[in-house]
């Protein structure tokens, strides 16, 4: 079972979280052309190895987290809040 160290709640089972997706995607501006959006939405890497991904602590503090996880071993290298200000606060806390 994957266990994720939520910076706000502590280490919890993955069943408390919802998987988001690739955290490295930079979404285009809303008025960007369809070609840019197509790239962001449909042309994704299928990463073998360390991947930055988002997880939502749905049954917890509701923070969206950026998790560095190996897609081969499930090893988790780092976890931080996606929102930069929240990240600062939770970092100081821990």
């Amino acid at each position, binding site marked *: *079972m*994957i*266990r994720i160290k939520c910076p706000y709640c502590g280490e919890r*089972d993955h069943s408390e979280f*919802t998987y*988001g997706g690739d*955290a490295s995607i930079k*979404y*285009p*501006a*809303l*008025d*960007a*052309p*369809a070609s*840019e*959006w*197509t790239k*962001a*939405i*449909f042309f994704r890497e299928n990463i073998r190895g360390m991947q930055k991904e*988002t997880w*939502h602590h*749905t049954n917890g503090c*509701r*923070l*969206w987290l950026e998790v560095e996880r190996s897609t081969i*071993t*499930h090893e988790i290298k780092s976890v931080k*809040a*996606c*929102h*930069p*200000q*929240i990240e600062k606060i939770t970092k100081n806390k821990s």
Partner: protein
Amino acid sequence: MTSLRKENYGKINREKVLGFSWDNKEYFGYEGDSLASALLANDVRIVGRSFKYHRPRGVMSCGVEESGALVTVGSGSRRDPNVRATTQELYSGLNASGQNAFPNVNFDFGGVNNYLSRFFAAGFYYKTFMGLPPFEWGKGTGIWMVFEKIIRKAAGMGKASKEPDPDSYEHANDFCDVLVIGSGPAGIAAAQEIANNKLDVILIEQDSLLGGNSLSQKDFDPYLLNTQLKSSGIRVMPRTTAFGIYDNTVVGALERVTDHLPTPHSSLPRQRFWTIRAKHIIVASGALERHIAFNNNDLPGAMTVNASKHYLNRYGVLTGNNIVISTNNDSVYQTAKELHEAGSKVTILDSRDNVNHDLSKDIDLHLNTLPFSINGRKKIDGIDVCKTTDLSNKNTIICDQVLMSGGWSPIVNLVSHRGIKPTWNQENLCFIPGQIKENISVVGSAKGIWDEKNCIESGFVGANEAMNTFGMHKKEISFPSVGGWSNPIEPLFEVKSNKFPSKSFVDFQHDVTAEDVRLAHREGFISVEHLKRYTTLGMANDQGKMGNIIGLSLMAEQLDKTIPQVGTTVFRPPYTPVPIGALTGRNVGKHFRPLRVTPMHQWNIDHGAKMIEVGLYQRPWYYPKKNETLSDSYIRETTIVRKTVGICDVTSLGKIAIQGPDATELVNRIYTNPFAKLPIGKARYGIMLRDDGIVMDDGTSWRLGENEYFMTTSTAAAAKVMSWLEELLQTRWTDLKVNVTSVSEQWAGAAIAGPKSRDVLNECVFDASEITNDNLPFMGVLQTKLKDGTPCRVVRISFSGELAYEMYIESDYAHGMMDLLWESAQKYDGCLYGLEALGALRVEKGHVTAAELDGRVTIDDAGLGKMASTKKSYIGSAMRKRGVLSADDRDMLVGFFPINEKETFNAGTIVCEKNNIKGQGVGRITSVTHSPELGHWIGIGFVKGGLEKWKDITLIGADPVRNKQMEIKVVSPHMIDPEGKRMYA
């Protein structure tokens, strides 16, 4: 052969006699017996019939690897098939029977299969049902359907009960520093050392008694050990199997809480399904003794050597009087000695040419000798043996039991769950665990260490590794080396028989013989994984614990390769079977999933509502008057709403409070239509798209203040929309100063719909003048209070197409609000209406819900294209017209009428052109209802190209599931009051 219960042997309690029944006969055993030991003590030798050939089988081991004594325990709803008699503890009144036999295991008609066995060789199913040459008679699935039933009946295991399981099961969770799996000498040493260092230790043991293989020692006292461990603070969990190791050193375990008790306990679950999160795991799971493949190696009385030592010293049962032991390794000599001391005549066949052992003169030792074939039919009469150098020259030894030891296989299963490939150790002829990078240590014979002293030493080294995980001082010690026999083991996997077909069993449970493995090779199945599937070797409920290595060695021989070159099969959880009941836990029946009720749930029921599940929610379905059917009721409710007024619980809609200086910006970015200029005190219906331009959800947002909105979502998408807004704000638009809070549970809501709804509201609110058409126009929002002063929110909004409002109140006041509304509505001959009427009203208006917005539909498909702003950008705006999404022949929202007004249709009906009724047709009907206003059935759904293309053309509504077809026509989805005059009234 009669076996003896030996005085002064065993760890059973002879004070406590237990009566039990086997195949409807009464027997006695003792407390501490397993079902297998009690059967052996009673000289019950045939306890099962084999899978394909129905050969008689007896007890073959003393543990979880058992392949002979698979029995059915219990009856009725508690009938449990395929129970290993070797691990089933005996209790008073236990009722067990043999399986896969008719009329019983002693005399089984299915035994005829034994003589037809050449038809049942590997790949039998595949070949037979490809057709029988030369005429290819019976080719295809038709004949398979006929024969499958007969074959399945003949080949198989026990039968599960078809009644609901009366027992309860629990899910339980725990945490610890170090989890030790297995309580043999290595596990005990590790657990004690770690506990001495003040770490929190859980020790798991699948057996009821601690000790592992020490239980086969005469002077070992498991009860004393248990006391010692507990006093060192170790949390001991007996009768618990660690069936799998998962990521992050999490272990799944099954605890058999009451399987050893005569009657189900009123307050205890039958089993507990544990999830244990450890920081370090020590695997001390031991090793299993292998058998040897040779002719008739499965006759009742054939057993592994170490098992007989267990039966003697743990259960006080001497399994044979005249025993032949066949081996290729040193592990059997101690057993031979003890069996001899207990009174048996013992003969050892050792395949090696030179062994150095101090043996009593009364034990016959034949070196360079192989077992060739066991003689007998239902019991062993003797064994033909031969020299390793000359297989054709046979000698017969009279005996009543044959014990086999072809070497030992460390139980690498649990480590294999972590994707760690075992490595072949040629010196000891076994797989040992490979390099582990996680916080898992393997100790004892699970690591291939045979000697007890070294096993204990390895336990200390494992403990040391565990303590290192916690940053505690690490001593400079390393694991003792693998092995530990004074005379090296020599390969002995199979003794080839010249008989055809050979009955040298590799996998007893699935009746896979050595010849089957060779046949598979001849037919081209050279990968181990293919071999497994073709022969079914290793696919029975022991999952190859006994036969895998022998199968590999045979394959290696055929391919002229070594065993590691041939490979190993990957083990997956569970190590031993886990009942579905335990996996399910308490999530059965009503508790299958959570139940959500609205704050007026009881009020609805008190007022006669029949409820229906919508997602997790219980919602009012209809409110029948005396004798009314669902259909009568919703048609009446729909009619009354259009005529006077109706009240409906709409609490299940999602509700989100959006607050902050950038609230308007957020709302404007996520909806397709403009929200930037929505005045305070007004609401707007909005559509949200996904990034890819498909519709996500629809709902309303009300502007309560400069920086505050109240958003409603559909019931189905409430959670999804909330997570979506959080994702946008936390990951993409982190500069927006806005906060979203789910308030779905905080607000109760009711719809008040119908021409008299304003009159009803007037009577309920504190100040009736607020509700006028001028003060509260269509889409107006009011924060006001009820007659009794309770604050509430009112919005003039319509799902039914009538003059209508929704009123929201803090959940705790829901009953009061409903009382007020209902008291007033009754004065206007109003009604309460449920989901069915709500659906009818919206279908008449062509309003979409989740049935239409199914993740394939664009805003244009839904006929709501005019709600897509061209003046602003929003989520999905860039993509909503991409490629196929702007094609001309997309499925567009339309209404459907039956041509014959008396006909009805169902949601799911496929819309086809006349004379071309096939496939997916040209469209689909998604929602249907009887329309009281129109007087016939109507539907909405989608058709390629939309209304313009199909207007005035008769189409066919095909319902192949119900074998129904009717003529239909396409109409506008807005079937009633298309100008919307009523809701603006």
